[in-house]
């Protein structure tokens, strides 16, 4: 009897043990399943994340293609109406549906290149000053930061200042040299633009000049060259392509600049007679007339201006970036 009881106890305890064992097994299994599930979830999250990154990167490409496509599609009407002669048509008369972009292209080129000519000595001086003469110290730091702030001031503020301060000065200057004292015009906008584009060529020039290997410069010094001779015959030739890239980037900025130019250029669709005459740039025409364009061909002609502007700035920027890349490698 005793044994049977014992047996009973044993079998019972066995079953309890068994149950315990199975329950831990189950728990382990459950844990395992959970772990698998969690890692599944993590893998899924990881894949979702990777896919999101790819989609976002694709989206930038789609965005640029979309911009280009929109401009092309919306300007087809004007492309069909006036064809390629649009670019050198001399008359822009929305009332008679004659659209020639020549006055604006001329205005854009005049303002941009004049601004470039004015700004190049200054931006190169900043580049040489910061890159060669005084690369360190608080004076250099202050100058560098201040020049960078020039690019930070909103263009509408440049325009307002130009309108209130610069235009009267230019007007009295024009009266002195004996041209029509309008004040508003290509000359005023070039002056404003020149100030605005200084930082681009300057900061690029600085970093390029700093990259000139010092053994080249030292070799020139050891041959007895003065500082100016080192700059002229070592640094400038060595950084030629980089400096040119800086000029291109500045030019790209100048071509696309809208607000400051719109406010001081005078806004007429006539071909400017000289650099003091009022005119219009491509960007300023769009800014002024886009919301007033009351029939489809007019609107489309304005968009074609935008397309030309887009293509030109893209090409200029691409060449500039290529040059920088070629230089830094």
């Amino acid at each position: 009897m005793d044994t049977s009881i014992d047996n009973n106890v044993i079998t019972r305890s066995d079953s309890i043990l068994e149950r315990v064992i199975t329950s831990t097994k189950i728990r382990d299994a459950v844990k395992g399943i959970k772990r698998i599930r969690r890692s599944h979830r993590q893998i899924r999250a990881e894949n979702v994340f990777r896919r999101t990154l790819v989609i976002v990167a694709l989206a930038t490409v789609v965005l640029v293609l979309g911009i280009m496509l929109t401009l092309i599609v919306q300007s087809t009407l004007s492309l069909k109406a006036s064809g390629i002669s649009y670019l050198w048509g001399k008359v822009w008369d929305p009332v008679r549906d004659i659209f020639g972009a020549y006055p604006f292209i001329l205005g854009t080129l005049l303002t941009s290149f004049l601004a470039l000519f004015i700004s190049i000595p200054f931006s190169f001086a900043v580049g040489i000053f910061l890159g060669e003469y005084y690369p360190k110290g608080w004076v250099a730091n202050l100058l560098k930061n201040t020049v960078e702030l020039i690019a930070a001031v909103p263009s509408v503020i440049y325009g307002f200042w130009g309108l209130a301060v610069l235009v009267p000065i230019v007007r009295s200057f024009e009266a002195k040299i004996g041209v029509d004292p309008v004040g508003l015009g290509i000359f005023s906008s070039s002056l404003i633009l020149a100030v605005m584009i200084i930082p681009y060529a300057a900061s690029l020039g600085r970093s390029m000049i700093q990259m000139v290997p010092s053994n080249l410069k030292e070799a020139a010094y050891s041959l007895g060259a003065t500082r100016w001779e080192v700059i002229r015959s070592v640094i400038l030739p060595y950084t030629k392509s980089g400096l040119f890239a800086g000029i291109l980037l500045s030019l790209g900025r100048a071509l696309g600049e809208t607000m400051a130019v719109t406010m001081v250029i005078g806004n007429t669709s006539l071909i400017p007679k000289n650099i003091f005459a009022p005119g219009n740039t491509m960007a300023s025409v769009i800014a002024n007339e886009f919301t007033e364009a009351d029939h489809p061909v007019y609107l489309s002609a304005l968009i074609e201006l935008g397309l030309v502007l887009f293509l030109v700035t893209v090409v200029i920027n691409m060449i500039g970036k290529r040059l920088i890349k070629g230089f830094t490698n």
Partner: protein
Amino acid sequence: MSPHVKYRIGKSTGFQILTVILAFSCVVPLIFILIYIIQAGITKINWHFLTNLPKPVGESGGGIANALLGSTIIIGIASLIAIPFGILCGIYLSENKKSKLAYWSRLCVDILQGVPSIVIGIVAYFWLVKPLGGFSAVSGSVALSIMMLPIIVRSTEETLLLLPDSLREAAFALGMPFHRVILKVIIPCGISGILSGVMLGVARIAGETAPLLFTAFGNPYLSTNIFKPMQSLPLLIFNYATSPYNDWHDLAWGASCILLIWVLLLNIFTKLITRKWKVQL
């Protein structure tokens, strides 16, 4: 010293002096502009100016509350779109340096950076203003977010490329999944650079006018409906500065002063951050 050597040294010194003069003279217009705008604007700014609507022509006084609110809303929405998008794109570019998509994406970001702002305005007009049937703040925000995007992408990419690879490898070795490595390790390490990129982006779009001309359009009244035209600071400055009325010029000077101070502070603040964390942008 022979006269020839003297002449060469003199030439060198002359060039140095010329460089110094030219370099410092290009700061002069900036200082003139700053002083002029602050002088003309600071006297116009008071509580009344900040909290009231512009008055119609002929009445003096009035404020720019609608433009301040509008600018904040438009920039806020633009940031909401551009910041996540830009950071994710920057992460992709820094994680997949060599892939074909990264090459094209980088190219497109470069292109976007150079696109004139007025062109982006045109595009936003056809994408949003026409389909939605009217000028709206949202379309302005989208246009501005496109302008902001390249700056954020670039700064994120540059910052993340600077981080040592060992950081990521250590995290991967602990068995962290990819997204957690990026979000919990890489981003926090590069947050200062990313943040300064974001702030530069905000500073750039805060003063942008051209893309808003045909999108947000401007509105003389206080409006919080993002599907309706909305005023913004740069638009107000442009419209009032080119008007012939002196009262409106006064408003525009005050607004210019506020815009200028706000943009410059953002830039200076960014500079301080980047200097503290030694981030190169």
